[in-house]
C-alpha cells in the first residue's frame, strides 16, 4: 500500500471518529434533556400535584439556586480545580445580607457589599492556590470550615430574621409567569455562556485545565485566570446566598449544608470532567434541574427522604460511568 493511500485511509478513519465523537457528545446532552423530560412526564402522570403551577414554580425556584452554584463551580472544575466552599459561602452570605438589612442598609448597598465579600473570598482562594501553592481541595476545604465558623461567631449561632418585605417579596414574585429566581439563572447563564464559549478567557480556562504549562508558555496569564475562576465561583455562591436569604427570610450560617456536593454533582452529571478541560454552561444547568426534580418527585411520591440521597448517589455513578465510556472511545 502506498504511503499516500495509507494516510488518506487513516484520515478517513479519523474523520469518522471525530464525527462520531461529536454525535455522541450531542447525544449525551440530548440524553440529559430526554431524562429530564421523561422524569417530568412520569411525575405528571403518576402524581396529581406535580404538574401544578405551584409545584413547578417551586421546583424552578429550588433548582435555580443549585444551578447558579453549579455554574460557578464549573468554571473552577474546568481548570482541573475544585471549590468545596460554595455551600459555606452561601450560608455566610445569607448572614451578611441579613445583618446588613437589619442594620438598615438599603437593599442595593447590602447586595453590593455581600457580592464584594464573595469576591474577596474568591480572591483569597486563588491567592492560597496560586501564591501559597495549596491544592484547591485543601484551600477550599479550609474555608468551608472556617466560613461556617465565622458566620456562627458573628451571629453567636443565632438566626437573623429579615424583615424587609421588598427583599423577601422578590423571591416569591414572578415575571410573565416565571419565578424571579429562575430568571436569575438566565441572568447568570447568558453572560456565562458568552464568557465560557465565546470569549478568549473561556478558551484559556480550558487550556489551563488541559495543560497549565502549555497555556503559560503560550502567553496565557495562568495566575490571573485562576483568580478569575475562583472569584466567579465565589461570586455565584454569594449571589445564591442572597437569593436563599430572600427565599427563606433568614440569615443563618448553617444554611446550604452540603450544597457544594450538589453543585459538583450537578456539574459532573452535566458532563464536566473533574480532570479538567471538559465542561459547558448547559451541562450543569441540566444536571441541577435533574437533581432537583428527583428531590421534588420523591417528595410528591412520598418516597422516604433517605432514599432520595441513595437515588442521587446511584444516578451520579450511572451517568458518570456512561460518560466515561463515551470518553474512552476516543
Amino acid at each position, binding site marked *: *500500500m*502506498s*504511503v499516500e493511500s*495509507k*494516510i488518506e485511509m487513516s*484520515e478517513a*478513519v*479519523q*474523520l469518522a*471518529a*471525530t464525527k462520531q465523537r*461529536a454525535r455522541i457528545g450531542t447525544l449525551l446532552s440530548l440524553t440529559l434533556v430526554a431524562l429530564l423530560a421523561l422524569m417530568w412526564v412520569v411525575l405528571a402522570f403518576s402524581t396529581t400535584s406535580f404538574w401544578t403551577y405551584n409545584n413547578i414554580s417551586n421546583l424552578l425556584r429550588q433548582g435555580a439556586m443549585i444551578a447558579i452554584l453549579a455554574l460557578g463551580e464549573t468554571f473552577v472544575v474546568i481548570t482541573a480545580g475544585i471549590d468545596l466552599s460554595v455551600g459555606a459561602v452561601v450560608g455566610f452570605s445569607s448572614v451578611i445580607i441579613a445583618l446588613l438589612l437589619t442594620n438598615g442598609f438599603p437593599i442595593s448597598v447590602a447586595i453590593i457589599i455581600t457580592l464584594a465579600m464573595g469576591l474577596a473570598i474568591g480572591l483569597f482562594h486563588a491567592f492560597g492556590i496560586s501564591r501559597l501553592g495549596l491544592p484547591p481541595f485543601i484551600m477550599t476545604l479550609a474555608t468551608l470550615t472556617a466560613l461556617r465558623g465565622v458566620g456562627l461567631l458573628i451571629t453567636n449561632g443565632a438566626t437573623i430574621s429579615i424583615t424587609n418585605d421588598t427583599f423577601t417579596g422578590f423571591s416569591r414574585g414572578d415575571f410573565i409567569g416565571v419565578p424571579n429566581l429562575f430568571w436569575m439563572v438566565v441572568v447568570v447563564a447568558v453572560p456565562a455562556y*458568552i464568557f465560557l464559549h*465565546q*470569549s*478568549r478567557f473561556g*478558551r*484559556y480556562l*480550558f*487550556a489551563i485545565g*488541559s*495543560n497549565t*504549562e*502549555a*497555556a*503559560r*508558555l*503560550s*502567553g*496565557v496569564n495562568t495566575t490571573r485566570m485562576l483568580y478569575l475562576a475562583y472569584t466567579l465561583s465565589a461570586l455565584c455562591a454569594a449571589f445564591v446566598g442572597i437569593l436563599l436569604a430572600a427565599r427563606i427570610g433568614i440569615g443563618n450560617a448553617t444554611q446550604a449544608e452540603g450544597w457544594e456536593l450538589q453543585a459538583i454533582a450537578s456539574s459532573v452529571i452535566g458532563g464536566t470532567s473533574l480532570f479538567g*478541560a*471538559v465542561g459547558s454552561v448547559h451541562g450543569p444547568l441540566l444536571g441541577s434541574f435533574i437533581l432537583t426534580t428527583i428531590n421534588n418527585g420523591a417528595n410528591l411520591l412520598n418516597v422516604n427522604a433517605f432514599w432520595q440521597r441513595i437515588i442521587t448517589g446511584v444516578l451520579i455513578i450511572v451517568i458518570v460511568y456512561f460518560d466515561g465510556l463515551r470518553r474512552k472511545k*476516543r
Partner: protein
Amino acid sequence: MDQVQQDGKRSGAADSVVPLLELKGLDKRFGATHALKSVDLIFEAGEIHAIVGENGAGKSTLIKLLTGVHVRSGGEVYWEGKPVALATPHEAIGYGINAVHQEVVLCPHLTVAANLFLGDEKVRLGLLQHREMVREAQKILDEIGFKIAAGAILSSLTIGQQQLVATARATTRGTRFLIFDEPTAYLTRQETAQLFALIGRLKAKGVTIVYISHRLEEVFQLTDRVSILRDGQWVSTQRTAETNEEKLITGMIARSIEQIHYKETIPFGAEILRTERLSGKGFEDVSVRVRAGEVIGLYGLVGAGRSEFVQSVFGRFPKTGGQIFWKGQPVEIRREKDAISIGIALVPESRRDQGLCLNLGVGLNINLPIYKRLTKGFVIDPRAEAAAADRQIRDVQIKTASRDAPASSLSGGNQQKIVVGKWLNHGAQLFIFDEPTVGVDVGTKVEIYKLFATLLKNGAGIILISSYLPEVYDLADTLHVFRRGRLIASHDSAHTKEKALHEAILTEALGV
C-alpha cells in the same frame, strides 16, 4: 564468540533445534484496527534480535502480546516448543519474559533499591530490611556496571539513569527473554555504553534480547538478526551482518532513502539573533549567531550547557553576563514572556508536558497565543478563529481530520507541527527545537525535516539541540560543540560532511 554461543546453549535447557520463543500466525485486532497480521517470528536462545519498523508498524503491539499485557486474537506462541497462552503479565514473567519500556514505569518517590526490589522485598519478621536491600542493590548495580547510588531517590536521577534502573530491575528476576523498547532515546553516550556492555553480558549468559530502536546504527552495532515489521505485517528476518541501513529503511517504509535526509539549500538572510559572550547558570561566554534561513546545531553531552544556554535565551533563567541582540538591537530577555513577544519560540523536548493541550482541539492549540488578536470587543470572531487555524493547518501541513479534532488524535510529528504552527501564527521568527526527533520514526523525521525547510524558506532561523550527531550534522548549517558549559568549537556546514570531522566533533564533545 564461540564461547558465547556455547554458554547460550548450556543455560537454555532446550537444544538448538527448538527455539526459545516461536510465534506462528500471531494476530491482533483492536476493534476495527488490525494491528498485527499473522506474524511468524522465531527467537533463538541467546541471540540479540532487532525489530525495526515505523511507528504504527506493530512493534508496541508485539511487545504487549509477548509480555501478556494484551491477549492475542489469533495464532500460536511456543515457549521452548510448548504452546503457551501468555494471557497475563504474571504468566509472562513466570517464563522469564521481561521488558524495559521507553517510558520509565517505576515509583519516582522511592529509592533505587526499593524500586529494584519492588514486589519482592527482603523482609524479616514482617519488617522491611532497608539496609540489606540497599547493600544488595548496590552490589547488583556495581556488578552490571551501572554507576548509580542504590540509596538515591529515583526522581533525583536523570531520565537516562532511571532507564538504567529499570533495566537493572528487569535483569534481576530470572529473566531469560528481555525486550528493550527504544532504550537509548534518553541516554547519554556513557550511559549507552554502559547499557550495551550489560546487553553483551546478558547475551553471554544466554538471555535472549529483543532490541527495538529507531537508531539503525545501534542495530548494526549490537544485534545478531534483524526483523522488519510494516503495517502490522512481517516483512523479513535477516542476519544483521548480511544487510545494510538502506535495505532496512527500504523494507520499513517502502520508499527510497534519498527522501530520508531531507535538506534544501536555502540562502541566508539578515541576522536574527546574536549572543555576545553570554553567560548564565551552567554556561559561560557563549557567542553564536542565527541568520534567516539558517539552522545552527548545538551538540554536546547532557549537562554540557547547551540546554541551559537556550533556556537563558528563552528567558527561563536570567543571564549573568553578556548581551543578546535581536536583529542587531540589544534586547533584555528576563522572562519567557519577553522572548515570546519578540518572536522566539521554543518547541520543547517533552511535547506532552509543555507543548500542547492534548485533549483540546487542534485549532484551539494553534490559536492559544493569539486569542487577543482574534477577539472583537469581548467575543471571539469565530470566522477569524477558524481562518487562523486553517491557515496554519494548511501552511505547515498538519494532517488532521478537522480543526476541532483533539491534538491527542494526531501522530507525534503532526503534534509537533501544531506547536510550530502555533508560534508561526504568533509571528515567531526564531525557532528553538529541543531534541525534536527523540523517539520518532523515519517517516515522521522526514516530516520534521521538511518542516524545517518550510520554516527556513519563510525567513525563520532555527536553533537545533540534538544529542544525535548524524541529525545535527545533516541539518545544521553551523555546528557548535558544547563541553562543560563552554562553546569549544564551531564548524560550518561545508566541512561537516567529512567523516574525519565527524569523529573530531565527537572527540571535542567528549573531551577525550
